[in-house]
């Protein structure tokens, strides 16, 4: 039977999950909006970030250090990928871009598997994240509240970066018309590099944040990839608001459905995506733009 407490707790879960999904999908959607490349290695980068964080954490680092390591590690990997491989594919057909990023994802996951083995790893909660908090109207796991707070903080930072800095201005303009940005004297090659790296970092950071809840296994990459896509389809391509809205919507759908029947969570999400594709193909907050 549904109690108000269960409902509220699931609502919170959905929000926490949703903001995490938003963070991760942010990377995917901005990269597609500016570079025009759909990164099929995105799920793999999530997992790589998680494992990097795990290693740092296991070496006796703090969880915060793990977060930083995960984000920076995947940022560097993203930069390397763009420089060595991705930039040669900007003019190649979409299928080739999909195939090469997909292959990169496989390579990343298999590397992880070679280094860490295939059995899932549980990440213990940081000391400041253990236990339950009394929110007055209900008890709720502390880490999830902190996760919520951290996610909001990071999304806030991304928002500031995107809407309050010069770099963000360039990215916003680039989503609209990268050639005009080029004509106005801005080194777009460096912009591409940075955007791709940041997209990877967003995935990696999300991976570290999610690891105490989801535990880590190399095989989760494909599922995460599909989830990110669904969020981007629902929210719309290339927009910050779209990623947040899509992420929260997806998180709530997953969470609230699990209240009714945990086995059907993914199906409900896919149904939602199918509805969006039929009635509003550009996504809730997307523009017609790239297709």
């Amino acid at each position, binding site marked *: 039977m549904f109690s108000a407490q269960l409902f509220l707790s699931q609502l919170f879960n959905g929000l926490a999950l949703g903001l995490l999904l938003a963070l991760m999908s942010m990377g995917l959607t901005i990269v597609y909006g500016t570079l025009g490349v759909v990164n099929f290695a995105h799920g793999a980068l999530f997992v790589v970030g998680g494992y990097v964080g795990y290693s740092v954490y296991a070496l006796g680092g703090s969880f915060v250090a793990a977060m930083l390591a995960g984000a920076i590690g995947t940022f560097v990997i993203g930069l390397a990928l763009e420089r060595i491989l991705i930039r040669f594919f900007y003019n190649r057909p979409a*299928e080739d871009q999909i195939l090469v990023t*997909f292959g990169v994802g*496989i*390579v990343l996951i298999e590397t992880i598997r070679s280094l860490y083995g295939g059995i899932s790893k549980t990440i213990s909660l940081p000391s400041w994240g253990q236990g339950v908090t009394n929110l007055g109207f209900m008890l709720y796991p502390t880490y999830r509240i902190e996760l919520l707070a951290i996610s909001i903080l990071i999304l806030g930072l991304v928002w500031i970066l995107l809407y309050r800095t010069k770099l963000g201005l360039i990215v916003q303009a680039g989503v609209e018309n990268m050639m005009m940005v080029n004509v106005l004297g801005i080194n777009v090659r460096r912009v591409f590099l940075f955007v791709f790296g940041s997209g990877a970092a967003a995935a990696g950071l999300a991976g570290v944040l999610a690891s105490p809840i989801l535990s880590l296994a190399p095989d989760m990459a494909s599922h995460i990839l599909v989830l990110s896509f669904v969020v981007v*389809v629902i929210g719309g391509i290339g927009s910050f608001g779209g990623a947040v809205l899509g992420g929260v919507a997806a998180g709530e759908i997953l969470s609230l459905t699990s209240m009714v029947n945990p086995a059907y969570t*993914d199906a409900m999400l896919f149904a939602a995506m199918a509805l969006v594709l039929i009635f509003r*193909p550009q996504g809730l907050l997307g523009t017609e733009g790239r297709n």
Partner: protein
Amino acid sequence: MTAGGAIRRWWPELVLFAVLVPAPYLGGFVGIGPDLLGRILIWGLFGLGFSLLFGYAGLLSFGQSAFFGTGGFVCAYLLAEGHVQNTLIALLVGTVAAAAAGLVIGFLTLRRTGIYFAMGTLAFAEMFYFLENSPLKHWTRGENGISGIPSAQISFGMMSFEVASGWQMYAFIAALFYIGFIVARLIAGSPFGAVLTAIRGNPQRASAVGHAIGRYKLAIFVVAAAYGGLAGGLLGIFQSYMPPDAFKLETSAQLVMQTVIGGAGNLLGPLVGAAVWLCLYEILQHTFAVGPYWKLILGIVFVLLVALLRRGLCGVVEDVFVKLADRYKGKRIGETSVGKLGIFAAARSSTGSPVLQARALSKAYAGFQAVAEVDFSLQEGEIHGIIGPNGAGKSTFFKMLAGEINPSSGQILLRGDDITALGATEICQLGMSKGYQINQLFESLSVRESLRIPALARARGKFRFDIFRAAHRIDDVERQVEAALTLVQLHDRQDVLVHELSYGEKRRLEIGLVLATGANILLLDEPLAGMSPEERAHVIKLLRSLRTGRSIVIVEHDMDAMFGLADRITVLCEGRLLDEGSPAHIQKSQAVQEAYLGGAKEHELA
């Protein structure tokens, strides 16, 4: 057909037969048993359908596992529960079930293209995995899969025999693969298959020359699903066990990777890729140092191939053969006689009334009127030009005539019939076709193959699943192609690949595609664009020669050419009809002159 001709046509089947029969014997020498061969063939069978889908039609699906699993589980369920004893019947039901799933998923996912299509197939495959694991658990046994599948029973009438594992099972699988290969080859070589390659190369043009590309895509999607279902069913019988892994994304991924490694454009590419994949796995397992890294190595190989050798291993082999074949290029055998280019007969001969008419045609975009209330009429046998200064709305108007965009208001009549919202494919089938300002060609086909595409639409209508004909043996079509080749003077370049043509030749092919549709009304958008003065003269001569039996509308900026060619000229300015009449009339018109000079009156310039 002569013996030489038969061999030339059927040599892949012969070679394959020659490989499959001794394979288990030869394999024994390198430690490859019939089991491994059987497994490779099952993946090869799965890949035959995928090769048609991705290699030929260009549709990259990440969701083939849905059909592999569906076919496999339906077949396994029927056999394991004893509902069906005859293995072949069970396989057939499984295949049909997979095809049905393909129809549903294809219908939903093919509404989008490229990335959205790939993502859609990915999501649906995940959904099928979930379905197998949960709601349908009762039938599929969830994560346990279906075990206890009895050994294969083949019965023909009174006779029935059991297929034991090992050599017999290999023979069974090989036989089914062989049949699958023959069917796939038929499809690839059929007119249906030719249209698929056109769709991969340039879907907009394939649609504009009269093919209903949506139906073709759905048809091949269902075919690929059927192959997947058959392969899945075979897997269950082969292992006596149907694993739920069949539905996992990993299965789709393995198929994609094997196909790219082996070569997507070749029907045997997936087989080669499967052989590489599975043999490499076996070899690396026995080299302990590298054992656990086999997939990493394959992943790196895959990335390198996508980046550097996009056409895979078979592509490399094909390139070598092409280079050798070039040296020994023989004469073309069996020339068809060159006749007249077939043109659609006018449905009714209309003397006096226009063949094409636009009435008060308008197009408005948000806050901007591109075309406003333009009237236009084209007489039988006329060459009618459309000119106008920048921003006049010429290309928008032209696109509406060709059925590429819908007007906001107004009507378009083709010999009296309303074609206003019909779309380019239908309009082409009614006898009107457009040539583009920027070449819209099938870059990877030869000139002859390119011209066949519109000719096939003319002969077969907008869709036909005619897999039992050969694409290049329809007399009507071949005559049309020959005539088009002659008319645009590309006859001695007919076997050259389009991307190797010079620009002038490509422009002529562009016009050739329009002619091969059999259109009697041609809409030509800047046919002289980007040409050197010499090429310009050639094309002007060509355009003049096209008049007989046709009516032509031309948009052009080259005034000399326009005034030399056109019988009448329509002038648009800022979306409106400014003037219309003979070239002499237009040249004397003050209003037209001023429109071009930006409102400047001539006397003001002196």
